[in-house]
């Protein structure tokens, strides 16, 4: 079981890490100073979650790799994050939409993980849930503001929704890792989350006067390390120091 759990925790850790890395690209470039602060704050929470999750993954793996080694020294195919979180920032609206679709999933997932049979995972979920609720509040409010703001903002954020929607199916991806962990009560049944996610997302999008695209083609692959081209560039920036100066402490 610990192999499946390692894989699962790695997936969650990579989601936080890669999205935190993406958000941190905004630092200093936000549309208003208040949003610069908010975005950086969310990035900071996500890097904090990534640290806790990857530390746990490293422990489960039992190969004496550190959280930093997991974060900075794997190759592209070994990252297990969702395709959604590695997508480029685009404009502020796209960043917000990506964040909203993810936050909604993350909040529901952490709520369920509170009762995980794995105590450590439950404790991480409890700590992360608080932050995630705030992230979701922030991203939902902005989706509504932008969707129901001006004609331009509506159009921009609708385009982003159309573009990102095809990465949302993967939020509910399941393979043998999930099956095994579900059996032992470590993780919830994903269909449970999916229904609630649909409801939550539909409500916010309705208030934002936005609509789900007709084209419902869905991609997956992130969970098994088959990524979009964007991830390679993100990693080459993120890993630069560790690759250029191997085996040093910072």
């Amino acid at each position: 079981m610990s192999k499946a759990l390692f894989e699962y925790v790695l997936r969650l850790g990579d989601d936080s890490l890669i999205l935190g890395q993406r958000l941190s690209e905004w630092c200093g470039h936000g549309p208003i100073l208040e949003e610069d602060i908010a975005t950086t704050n969310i990035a900071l929470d996500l890097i904090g979650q990534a640290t806790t999750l990857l530390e746990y993954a490293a422990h489960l793996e039992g190969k004496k790799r550190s959280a930093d080694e997991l974060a900075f020294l794997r190759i592209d195919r070994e990252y297990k994050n969702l395709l959604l979180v590695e997508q480029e920032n685009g404009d502020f609206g796209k960043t917000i939409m990506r964040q909203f679709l993810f936050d909604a999933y993350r909040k529901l997932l952490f709520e369920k993980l509170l009762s995980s049979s794995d105590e450590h995972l439950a404790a991480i979920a409890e700590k992360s849930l608080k932050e995630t609720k705030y992230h979701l509040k922030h991203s939902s409010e902005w989706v509504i503001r932008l969707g129901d703001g001006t004609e331009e903002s509506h159009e921009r954020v609708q385009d982003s929704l159309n573009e990102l929607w095809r990465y949302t199916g993967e939020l509910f991806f399941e393979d043998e890792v999930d099956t095994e962990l579900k059996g032992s009560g470590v993780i919830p049944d994903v269909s449970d989350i999916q229904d609630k996610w649909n409801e939550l997302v539909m409500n916010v999008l309705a208030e934002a006067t936005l609509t789900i695209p007709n084209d419902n083609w869905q991609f997956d692959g992130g969970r098994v390390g088959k990524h979009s081209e964007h991830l390679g560039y993100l990693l080459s920036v993120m890993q630069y120091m560790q690759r250029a100066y191997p085996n040093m402490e910072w």
Partner: protein
Amino acid sequence: MKEIDLAELERDFQAKIDADIKIEPKDWMPDEYRKTLIRQISQHAHSEVVGMLPEGNWITRAPSLRRKAVLLAKVQDEAGHGLYLYSATETLGADREQTIDDLHSGKAKYSSIFNYPTLTWADMGAIGWLVDGAAIMNQVPLCRCSYGPYARAMVRVCKEESFHQRQGFEIMSKLANGTPQQKEMAQDALNRFWWPALMMFGPNDAESKHTAQSMKWKIKRHTNDELRQQFIDISVPQAKLIGLSIPDPDLKFNEKTGHYESGEINWDEFWQVVEGNGPCNKDRVDTRRRAKENGQWVREAANAYAEKRRIRKKAS
């Protein structure tokens, strides 16, 4: 207003300052005092915000999870400082939008140190240690500034600055005690940032045109050269402690005065950077301007939405 009244108001104003009574936004103050403060606080605010960029440049490349988190937190603090300070300028009647546009048009200045590029990870250490260190020297006396809102903003800011300075010094000492390659990186960063850090205190006292009046108004408590000396006296032993050398062949300790004496600052370079010819002046201002332009539609949307809500609320 009759001339006699004005003279009396000015006398009362100066009496308050002399008695260390804080001036508050609604109090009468001379136009020049107001103007001086608006100029100084807005320059300070711009420095905080432009100052996010050289360090922001390394967040995505930070070498460990912990360093990434600390750097994010630090740069986020600087954004917060910018906010408090823009608010302080507003208490003096300045318009935030206009203040920011003055930065983007090149009319307003900000600290020249941020016009130098950050070339390696060690620059995160050098900036925290020296640049935030110099900022603390400048800002601690401002906690007692005669203008209440500025003084109170500085109290909050200074608390965070000392964390910034410590994390920078910690990065530096880790590198200086690391591999030869890391130590070289640290020394190189010190070589590049030492002199610009000394320039942060502004021109020599003889050249500084605002000092005398600002001291009389207790906006300023020490001269540029006094603060610079204090900074040198503190920083030189710190460099020694971690085994780095100060890039100044003329630096020597004067036993009699108990102070370090440093070589001559390259003031041509200082004025060139002030005039806009530093390596990054254009990049920094362009980046801030672009952030504002790219955010235009977002701000418009937020306003439009707020207006719609107001109308809906009224109708219901």
